[in-house]
């Protein structure tokens, strides 16, 4: 059991971590989701012992971890940059930590061979690191972490610097590896900025923002019941659209000419001011809808991201397929209000379309 209690760190007046508490159990997969600079890397480095925090406690299996120097903690970490030892070949890269552990030659040979097979780098044992592609370099880093069989595996946005296709592929493999290999008695902590990736990895989700953990729980729960507007923003890409509204007479009044019909179940929602939220993929371009002006339209893979505006009210839509839109073109838009989230004026969740949590 890895337990963090009120870990805080401030560097030069800037908050890096603030009252971060967590409990991670062996066999668990923990995904830290947060925007850039939310404190994800700092948290991982604190667990590894590379960063010391100002206050708070960190213990592993009851042992005070802060007293154990990095090199004795027996953790493994993969960075978003492809960090390997440039002066070693692939085999020696993976064998290096095992040699430091003082394992026997046979054991090292066996473990390296196995992890090379796991990451699919057979035949590359004697290659130099510089001769490998980015994806292969990251596989080496992964293999080195796996071969160590550490109790704690930290993955700091390991896929972010790979191109789109490779990222998809490696993500699948990584997920399988973690499920089959690591989940028995190790703790895996995976950090990412990508909500989709976090969803696919599943496990326990820790949402971080400005050095704090603002919500934690099973991934599906967090997606279905974001505790606050901020969580809803971070756990959706593009961000969830959030509009201040007035709930009155069975509909949400947003602005002049924009009213959204309330979903079927509005129990617990009081009349008056509130915030409504809806995901970008709950917007469709459809005749007869509200007219919005296209501000920007970009194609992302098989989808199109469209920035729309009507008066003061703006939103971002994500629609399937490649849609050809001009700037300043006026398009009719329909919002699927079946999936409307309702937050109070204090930005906490009042009503989720998935009903109440239990």
């Amino acid at each position, binding site marked *: 059991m890895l337990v963090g209690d009120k870990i805080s760190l401030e560097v030069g007046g800037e908050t890096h971590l603030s009252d971060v508490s967590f409990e991670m159990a062996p066999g668990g997969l923990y995904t830290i989701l947060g925007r850039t600079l939310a404190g994800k890397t700092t948290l991982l*480095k604190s667990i*590894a*012992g*590379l960063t010391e925090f100002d206050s708070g406690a960190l213990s592993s299996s009851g042992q005070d971890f802060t007293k154990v*120097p*990095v*090199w*004795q*903690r*027996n*953790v*493994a*970490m993969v*960075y978003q*940059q492809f*960090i*390997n*030892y*440039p*002066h070693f070949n692939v085999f020696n890269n993976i064998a*290096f*930590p095992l040699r*430091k*552990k003082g394992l026997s030659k046979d054991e090292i040979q066996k473990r390296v061979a196995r992890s090379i097979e796991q990451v699919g780098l057979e035949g590359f044992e004697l290659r130099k690191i510089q001769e490998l592609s980015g994806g292969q370099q990251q596989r080496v880093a992964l293999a*080195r972490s796996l071969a*160590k069989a550490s109790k704690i595996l930290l993955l700091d946005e390991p896929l972010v610097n790979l191109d789109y296709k490779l990222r998809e592929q490696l993500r699948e493999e990584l997920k399988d590896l973690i499920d089959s290999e690591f989940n028995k008695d190790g703790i895996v902590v995976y950090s990412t900025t990508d909500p989709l990736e976090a969803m696919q990895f599943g496990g326990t989700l820790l949402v971080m923002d400005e050095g704090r953990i603002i919500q934690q729980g099973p991934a599906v729960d967090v997606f279905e019941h974001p505790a606050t507007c901020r969580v809803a923003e971070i756990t959706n890409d593009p961000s969830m659209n959030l509009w201040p509204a007035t709930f009155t007479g069975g509909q949400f009044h947003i602005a002049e000419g924009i009213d959204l019909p309330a979903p079927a179940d509005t129990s617990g929602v009081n009349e008056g001011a509130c915030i409504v939220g809806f995901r970008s993929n709950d917007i469709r371009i459809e005749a007869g809808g509200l007219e919005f002006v296209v501000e920007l339209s970009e194609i992302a893979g098989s989808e199109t991201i469209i920035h729309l505006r009507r008066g003061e009210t703006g939103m971002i839509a994500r629609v399937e397929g490649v849609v050809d839109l001009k700037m300043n073109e006026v398009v009719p838009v329909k919002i699927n209000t079946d999936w409307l989230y309702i937050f109070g004026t204090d930005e906490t969740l009042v009503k989720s379309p998935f009903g109440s949590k239990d």
Partner: protein
Amino acid sequence: MRSFYITLKYLAIALWTAFVVGPFLWALSTSFKDFSSVTSGAKYIPWLQFKPTLEGWNVLWRTPARGGVDIAEPFMNSLMVTTLASAISIALGTLAAYALSRYTFKFGFVKNNDITFFFISQRIMPPVVLSIPFFIMLSKFGLLDTIAGLVTVYIVLLMPIAVWIMVDFFNKVPRELDETALIDGCNPFQAFFQVVLPNSIPGLVVATMFCLIFGWTDFFFSFILTFTEVQLLPVRIVALNSSITPWWSLSAAALISVAPLLLVAFVVERFLSKGNLSGALK
């Protein structure tokens, strides 16, 4: 128009080449002259304009007792002092540079940048300012006119160069490399010696080259701090200048003293063209 530019470009290169090479060619020609060829006005081409002789070169290997200059001994002294001082400066300077690049220090109001500046600022001191107190200090310890004494002084000359180049170099080596080594079970020393250092060879080579250059070419300290026992090459050659000015042996000796560092020029260019200098020199 374009060909005009290109002509201009090569003309400029040719002019500077002539300026760079000129003194060497003159020295080469002079080294084969004798008294009469020198004193009868400027001559350039052997056999055509004057009768060449090897006297200027031969005299360098003869002992003073036989009327020679004996350049071999100061040559070895120079080599010894320069390599020893460079080795110590690189070793200590590299360690300090690594500390300054990776860790945060605070001694009162003194922080990393101030310590780095302290190292580098030693280059501001002109040799003449330091030579008088060094003279007194070395004579107190009985180190005047010894290799050890000179090496001590040269460390002040060379360590700033090592620190300057290596701090910049280490700043370019990703921190994550050391961190990965620590995570993989290295203590900080193992991380440095087994992981960071093997990947810092370009920086080390450049720093070594600069230490060798500035050590080998220094004159003033050895001029003040040595007399007869440990003369260094520049001192011996300049001493030739003040006597009856035997231009031929002077030129030959000068060419010999310049020769070893030509190798350094090749090494520096190699690292320059490979782009390894860009981070090291800023």
